[in-house]
């Protein structure tokens, strides 16, 4: 026997946490090998997406907004207002893109999850490996986004550097529950269209990305407050504009961490139920 055996509960020399990390990294490597085929194309869209949005909305539409007065957005240029919000929204999009269909493909069409489940990897490791890969993709895309924001002159404060971890965390707050949900879908992928149309698009439009949610009717605002995207948008914007309030920032981060952690706990269950039946 030459295979390195995952320590069982009885002969576990390291901590459970270290073992889980090691196993999750093994699952992560699958996505990494898979990504080697498609990374070039993904980089193009990671660059093109922010350039087009910041150009069209930030500069072109922004000129119009700026001419009409920017009191309601805090007397900054529309570009400076919009860019950090778009960054958080872009993190959400990246997370959704790496969660729903890739998970469904892995569990239903290609059954690569099932292949992994017949090795020492546990369902939770397979789940966390996928989350790790999503975190890597988020870090890549958000680094590019931040660089393009800087190139557009849309950053007002050195605190903007902290937008990177905040946007990654925002993405993870979407990725973990969406992974957990996607793995439960066994018949078809129709639920994903519902999520796109009635979840992602309204969030994208109404979470303060393009205009402050104080512009919305009062009764609808609590819905925006409950979504992870608003917290990501609000905190990225405060960091980028240099208007951070520490208590509010901690609240936003805390909220995002709680959602991401709940998603992790939920996925641990749904992956086990799907892969160990």
């Amino acid at each position: 026997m030459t295979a390195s055996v995952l320590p069982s509960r009885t002969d576990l020399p390291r901590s459970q946490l270290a073992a889980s990390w090691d196993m999750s990294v093994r699952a992560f490597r699958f996505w990494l090998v898979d990504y080697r085929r498609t990374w070039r194309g993904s980089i193009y869209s990671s660059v093109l997406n922010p350039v087009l949005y910041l150009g069209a909305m930030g500069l072109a539409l922004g000129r119009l907004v700026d001419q009409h007065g920017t009191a309601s957005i805090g007397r900054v240029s529309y570009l400076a207002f919009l860019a950090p919000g778009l960054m958080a929204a872009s993190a959400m999009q990246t997370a959704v893109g790496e969660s729903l269909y890739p998970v469904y493909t892995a569990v239903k069409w290609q059954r690569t999850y099932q292949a992994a489940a017949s090795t020492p990897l546990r369902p939770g490791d397979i789940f966390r490996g996928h989350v790790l890969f999503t975190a890597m993709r988020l870090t890549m895309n958000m680094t590019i986004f931040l660089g393009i924001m800087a190139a557009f002159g849309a950053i007002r404060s050195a605190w903007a550097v902290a937008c990177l971890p905040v946007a990654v965390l925002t993405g993870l707050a979407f990725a973990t529950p969406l992974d957990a949900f996607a793995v439960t879908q066994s018949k078809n992928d129709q639920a994903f269209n519902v999520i796109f149309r009635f979840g992602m698009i309204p969030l994208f439009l109404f979470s303060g990305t393009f205009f402050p949610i104080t512009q919305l009717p009062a009764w609808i605002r609590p819905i925006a407050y409950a979504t992870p995207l608003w917290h990501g948008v609000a905190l990225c914007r405060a960091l980028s504009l240099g208007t951070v309030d520490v208590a509010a920032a901690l609240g936003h981060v805390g909220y995002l961490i709680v959602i991401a952690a709940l998603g992790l706990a939920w996925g641990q269950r749904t992956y086990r139920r799907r892969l160990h039946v």
Partner: protein
Amino acid sequence: MPEPEILIRAHDLTKRFGDFTAVDGIDFELRRGEAFGFLGPNGAGKSSTMRMIGCVSPPSAGELTILGKDPRTDGPAIRARLGVVPQEDTLDVELTVRENLLIYGRYFGLPRDLIAERTASLLEFVQLAERADDPVEPLSGGMKRRLTIARSLINDPEILILDEPTTGLDPQARHVVWDRLFRLKQQGVTLILTTHYMDEAEQLCDRLVVMDGGRIAAEDSPRELIERYSTREVLELRFDVADHEQAADKLADVPAERIEVLADRILLYVDNGDGALTVVRGLGLEPLTSLVRRSTLEDVFLRLTGRRLEDG
């Protein structure tokens, strides 16, 4: 002779899905070095049993010990020492043949150079060496199966689990797979496999159980099962559709151990097929076709369950 080493021991093993009992309290043992088969129609509970052995499906009741460990608590450690060839291919078809083995080997925590070394010899073994850097997608069904077998061996497993290894393959591809599995068996790899092909069971298995409706109907070597549950020869008669029923009635007078009236044929279980055919003709019956053959596991299954294997 030393006592054979028991690698898997199942006692009263049960798997339920809601109200449905897929595996209904089965007992069996797997010994090191043997090829052990589960023969039965679709829905007999074979795959559920394999998934429990593969530690990806917790038993609902009963005892299961694999390599001395309990799959409920030691699943990862057991799976590290198993090789699994699932019923449906789980290859990543967009990656190359070599990348599929690399990823799988990494799941077991094997170092890259060891994986590369094993990949070379395993691809040689399954006759895919020249396709190593091709994507999996365009490979034929038989090639994908062989790749899955190579992949299942990457961790040098102590037990190789094969769930219907040749289902869906054309006859030629099946024979290539059988040949490879036979070589593994000769190399001393312990095999546990399911099949609903009696010829597969006869060719590969040292010992097998006949499974039906979640239960084990019989257990022995293929030859012993045939001797115990069937006769030396079988006389197969085919009559004109119009005469089928009538002929079946008349055949009751032929001295056969057992007569099975199927939809399209009548089977007479006898020790001497040619002798029985003479008796049939003596009764004034003239079958359209007649065939004298050896008994097979198909006959054993028919005897034990009253159904044919492919009926499912």
